[in-house]
C-alpha cells in the first residue's frame, strides 16, 4: 500500500482483530448507556471502555509498518528489524506462531470445523458429530491414509461418548451409540 510516496505494509489480520475489539467495546458501552446512565451502572464500564478505546488508538499504528524500498535490491531495513523482533518473540512466553499462508489456512479451516461441530452436536447426535469432526480434523492436519482416518476417530468417539456418559448426569443425545 502506498501512502505519501512511501510503501506501507499493513498487518491486515491484526488490524481487523483490533477493529473488532474496538467495535465490541463501543457497542457494549452504548448498550450499557442505553440501559441507564446511572452511576451504579456505568461506574466501571464507562471509564474502562474509554480507556480500552484509547488503547486501541495507541496500538493502531503497530498494524502499519513503513517499508523503505531500496532501488538496488538490498534487503529492506524493516525486514532485518522484523527478523530481530522474531528472535525476540521466540522467548516462548507465547508459543511461536507460523506465518506461512498454508498453515494459516489450516488453522482457519480447523476453527471453522470447530464451529460447525459445536452447532451440529445436537442435530447430528454427539456420536456422529464427534466421529466426523475427528476424521475431518485429522484430514486437515495432514492425515491421508484411509485406515487411521477411520480407526482413530472410531476410538475417540467410543472413548469420549462412553466416558462422558459415565461421568455426566446430563442427557447426551446420540444417534447410533
Amino acid at each position, binding site marked *: 500500500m502506498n501512502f505519501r510516496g512511501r510503501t506501507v505494509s499493513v*498487518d491486515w489480520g491484526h488490524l481487523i482483530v483490533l477493529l473488532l475489539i474496538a467495535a465490541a467495546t463501543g457497542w457494549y458501552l452504548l448498550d450499557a448507556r442505553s440501559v441507564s446512565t446511572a452511576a451504579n451502572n456505568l461506574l466501571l464500564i464507562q471509564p474502562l471502555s474509554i480507556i480500552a478505546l484509547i488503547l486501541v488508538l495507541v496500538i493502531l499504528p*503497530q498494524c502499519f509498518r513503513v517499508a523503505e524500498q531500496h532501488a538496488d535490491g538490498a534487503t529492506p531495513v524493516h525486514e532485518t528489524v522484523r527478523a530481530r523482533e522474531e528472535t525476540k518473540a521466540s522467548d*516462548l*512466553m507465547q508459543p511461536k506462531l507460523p506465518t506461512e499462508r498454508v498453515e494459516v489456512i489450516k488453522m482457519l479451516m480447523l*476453527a471453522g470445523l*470447530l464451529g460447525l461441530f*459445536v452447532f451440529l452436536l445436537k442435530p447430528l447426535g454427539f456420536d456422529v458429530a464427534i466421529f466426523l469432526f*475427528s476424521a475431518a480434523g485429522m484430514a486437515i492436519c495432514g492425515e491421508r491414509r484411509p485406515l487411521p482416518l477411520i480407526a482413530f476417530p472410531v476410538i475417540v468417539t467410543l472413548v469420549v461418548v462412553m466416558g462422558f456418559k459415565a461421568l455426566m448426569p446430563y*442427557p447426551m443425545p446420540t444417534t447410533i451409540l
Partner: protein
Amino acid sequence: MIDMDAFMGALGLMATSAGSWGWIVPGLIIGLVFSAIPGISITMAMAIVLPMSLYMDFFSAVVFLTSVYTGAGFGGSVPAILMNIPGSPSSFATTFDGYAMSKKGEHNEALGYALFASTLCGIFGYVLLLFVVEPLADIVLKIGPLEMFAVALWGMLLLGSLGSTYISRGLLAAAFGVLLGTVGMNTAGFIRGTMGLPTLLDGIQPVPAMIGLLAAGQLLSLAGKDYILEAEGARSVSVKRILLGCWYTFRYPGVLLRGSVIGIVIGAVPGVGSSVGNLIAYAEAKRTDKDSSSFGKGNPKGVIAAESAVASAEGGSMATMLALGIPGGGATAILLAAFMMHNIVPGPTFIETQKDMVYAIILNNIVQAIVLLVVGIGFIYVAANVVRVRTRYVLPAILVVATMGTYAVNGSIAGPITFFVFACIGFALVRYEYPVAATVVGLLLGRMLETEFLRSYQLTGGRPAYILDHPAAVAILVLMMLSMGMTAWGKRKQARHEAAEAEAMERLHREELAAKGTPHHQS
C-alpha cells in the same frame, strides 16, 4: 505462625477424605504426559481437565488440579533433557544445560537433578506458604473494599503489562477481559450486553470461556504443525544413576535456594509465571557463578536453577490466589474457577473460616511433590514415546474432549458455543501477541472488580476525597504507578537479556555442530 488446632484439623481432614488421595497419581500422570507433548503447556493441561473436577468434592478437585500443575511443571523437562525439545515453555531453560549433559552421556544424572530439584523446591514453596498463609490473611482481612479494588486493579495491570512484549496490547487484553466479565446483571440490578440472550444474564460462563481462551486458542494455532520427531538413538535409562543425580543435588544448596526464591517471588507476582521464571533463575545462576562459561555446556547448576524456579513458583502463585483471591496467571485462574464452581470464594475470609481446609491443601501439595519423585522416574521410561505422538492425532482428540468438557459443565449446548466463540477470540489474541491470561483473569475478576468499586462508591457517596482517609489504598495506588514505570523500564532490559541468552545458546550449538562437521538431523 501455624495454627496448631487447624493443623491437626487438616491432618484429620486428609485422613478422612481417603478418596482425594486417589487423585494424586492420575493428576500427576495427566500433567506429565500433557506437558511433555510439544505445544501443550501447563495451563492447557489444567484447562482441559477442569470440567472433570466439577464432579468431585471440593478437596478432591483441588488435589486433582494441583497434581496436574505439579506434574506438568516437571513433565516438560524430560524431553527437554533427552531430546532438546522443551515440552512446555516452562522447561525452555532446562534444555540449555540438560541437553548438553545428555550429549555428554550424563542424561540420567541430568534427569535426577531436574527431578530432585523439582521435588525439593516444590516442597520448599509450600512449606513457606504453610507459615505465611495465616499472617498474610490477617493483613488482608484488615483491608476494605477500596483497598481490595486497588489491589485487584494492580494485579490486572501487572498481568497486562508483564505478560506480553507490548505493554499496550497487554493492557488492552486485560481491559477487554474485565469488560467481558461485567456482561450480564450487576449487583445494582442493571442488565448490560446480553443481546437478549437469557444465558448471559448471569454473565459469560467462565469455565467454557476459559477453556476456549487458554486451550483451544493455542491448539488451533498448532493445526499447521505436524511434529515428526526423528527417533534419536534410544538412550538407556538407569534408575541407579538417576538416584545418584538426585543425591548430588544436595551439593548445590545455594543454587536451589536462589532458584526457589526467584520462583516464589515470580509466582506470587501476577503476570510473570513460570515460563519466564526458569529463564530468570537460569540467567541469575549463570551471572553469579564463578565459572559462568561452563553454563550451556552441561553444568548441572543450570538444570537445577531452571527446575527449582518452575517448581517453587506453584507455591508462590497459590499464596496470591488464596490470600487475595486474585490469580496471577492462567494456572491459578483455573484453580480459582474450580473454587468458584464449588461455590467457594478464596480470600482472607476463606482462610479464616476454613483454615484446616487451607492447611490440608498445602500439606497435600507437599505430599504430591514427594509422589512426583516416584511417578516421575516411571514417566522417564515412556516420555520419549509421548513426545513423538503426532499433532494430527492429538489435536482432534483434545478438541473433542475440551468441547465435551464444556458441555459437561451444565449439560447445555451454550457451553460448547461459548467455548467456540472464545476459542476464536483466544486464537486471534495469541496470534497477535496479546497475553491471553490477562483476558482470562479479567473475565474472572470483572464482576468482583465492579462490585468492590460499587461498594466503595456507595460507602463514600461518590466523594473522591474519601480515598485520602485510606492511606493504604493511596499507598497501593502509588506503588502501582511506580511498578508500572519500573516494568516499562525493566522490560526493555530483560528482553535484551533474554535475547542475548538465547543467542549465546544458539551460537554454542552451532559451534558444536561445526566441530562435529556432520549435518544434524533432528526435529
